[in-house]
């Protein structure tokens, strides 16, 4: 049995549909119309202990809903979830004592208390032993550089400071599993870098199992080996990031800058762009066309000033998957 097992899980929300304006409002008072919205539609996956999995998908795909079901907040309508042999929703109290969850969009800290007081409260709630608490607090606050604002009330913190506080709060009780739902939302470039390396270290050193949702592909590239892609409640892809690259990232673009205006003869399997400032693009699939041979051919035939080869960014590939231009 896998550490985390999700089988055919679905969750539907009932949404009140009413037409606009006052007539719509009145009609709705007497005959409310409901529409069922399938937020998660029969997804299945397994995650092993110590894995770090990126969970991505466009807005409204069902990521947060899945995380909420995994963390025992929401009850699935059908299907089964087992994490570390607990059924999250049914054994909520015992289960949540061993997990950590961060919802980037919503702080779980006490709004009006200094950060450190929130931490002390968590220490009592989770009954964290003094020594472990001290050790974790020191280690995490140092790593995330929180010394400057730990005594400030949460309501006075900047978004990035609050996020770091929330991350530490979720880890004080040394959970073996952590769910991060957009922990880098609204964080600046340096802050993101700090959070990423922090997350990486937790996974590598402490062997914490993690699921990590984000809209920033850099986050995923730098932390996760495996990704799950979800859209409209269904799983589109489950595999390694490298595999996606190998499969869909084979497009290459060679840009050649000519010394003078030159006519180019067609090359098999290569799409040649229109000239622009004496530059032309050669687009091809590197599983079909050999880059070396192509370069040789071009350099041999024409007088070339400069030549570059680019590979597509992971964002481009993911965008294509979201747009159904390629099927994962």
């Amino acid at each position, binding site marked *: 049995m896998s550490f985390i097992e999700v089988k055919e899980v679905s969750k539907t929300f009932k949404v009140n549909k009413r037409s606009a304006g006052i007539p719509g409002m009145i009609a709705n008072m007497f005959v409310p119309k409901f529409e069922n919205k399938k937020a998660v539609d029969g997804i299945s996956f397994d995650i092993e202990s110590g894995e770090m999995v990126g969970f991505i998908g466009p807005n409204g795909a069902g990521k947060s809903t899945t995380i*909420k079901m995994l963390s025992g*907040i929401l*009850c699935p309508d059908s299907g089964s979830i087992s994490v570390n042999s607990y059924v999250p929703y049914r054994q909520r109290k015992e289960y949540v004592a061993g997990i950590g969850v961060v*919802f980037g*969009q*919503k702080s*779980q800290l006490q709004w009006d208390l200094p950060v450190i007081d929130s931490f002390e409260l968590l220490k*009592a709630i*989770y*009954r964290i032993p003094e020594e472990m608490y001290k050790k974790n607090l020191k280690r995490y606050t140092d790593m995330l550089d929180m010394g400057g604002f730990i005594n400030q009330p949460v309501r006075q913190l900047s978004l990035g400071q609050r996020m770091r506080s929330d991350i530490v709060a979720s880890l004080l009780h040394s959970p073996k599993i952590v769910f991060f739902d957009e922990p880098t939302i609204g964080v600046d470039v340096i802050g993101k870098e700090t959070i990423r390396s922090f997350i990486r270290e937790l996974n590598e050193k402490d062997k914490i199992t993690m699921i990590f949702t984000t809209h920033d592909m850099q986050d995923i590239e730098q932390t996760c080996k495996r990704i799950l892609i979800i859209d409209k409640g269904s799983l589109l892809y489950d595999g390694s990031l490298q595999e996606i690259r190998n499969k869909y990232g084979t497009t290459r673009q060679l840009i050649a800058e000519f010394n003078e205006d030159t006519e180019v003869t067609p090359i098999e399997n290569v799409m040649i762009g229109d000239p622009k400032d004496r530059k032309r693009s050669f687009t091809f699939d590197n599983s079909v066309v050999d880059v070396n041979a192509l370069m040789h051919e071009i350099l041999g035939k024409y007088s070339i000033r400069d030549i570059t080869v680019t590979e597509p960014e992971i964002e481009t590939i993911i965008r294509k998957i979201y747009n159904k231009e390629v099927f994962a």
Partner: protein
Amino acid sequence: MKMKAYMAFAKKSFLQKSAYRMEHWMGILNTLIRLVIYVEIYRALYGAREAVDGITMSMVTTNFILSLGMESFFVVDDFYLSYRIGNGSIASEMLLPVSFHGRMLADNLGTAAFKLIFHFIPAMLVAVLFIGISAPAGAASMGLFVLSVLFGYGVLWSISFMFQMFSFWLINVWAIMTIKNVFINVLSGAMIPLWFMPESMKNVIKFTPFESIYFTPVQIYLGKITGAEIAGGFIKQIIWIVCLLGIGMILWHKGQKKLVVQGG
């Protein structure tokens, strides 16, 4: 010890309460003003009479002082759950390894402890000094009174607990809470001493949990009920607490499956 977690919640709400100084003084004033109004109404009705149906004016006064005194620290928060469902913070609550009800009770008790010390005691001192209260019927009555006060709070809390569970199905529970509180105000004896209710009403009230909140403790304090009747009073209080909490728990389990968290 598991208690420590709940103690932490209670302590937090105790400390939080102390931040609202103005609200606090207004609360004491509110209790005293209501007390004076109720007592003066009855004093006017009594006129020169010594007793009405065997109830003396000093018993009426004592009823009001005790009921309003209890009310001043019987803390329930009717909107505890609906507020958290409404703004989505229920999600964070569910992530804590404690029972939601235990946590709600701990929060309420923390506030209640604050109110007991800083609202009940000063208000009582003023009331006893300036209005006067009958002495308890005896030392035993006093002890049993304190015990039945605890159960009285239990009944009040359980009623709120059960009604709060409708928050899972209703976006706004304000209306049902208002109706519930009207019933409590009128039928618990805090506004109209239940001695003066017509016989037919008394027979109805007997079958409701409302008299168990304030009236049963008052009756014990004054020695109006004795022996088997006191035992009956306690049994009633306990039965109501068990029933209301039981129904509340069933609704809680049903509601939890339906729970929808607002916001991303």
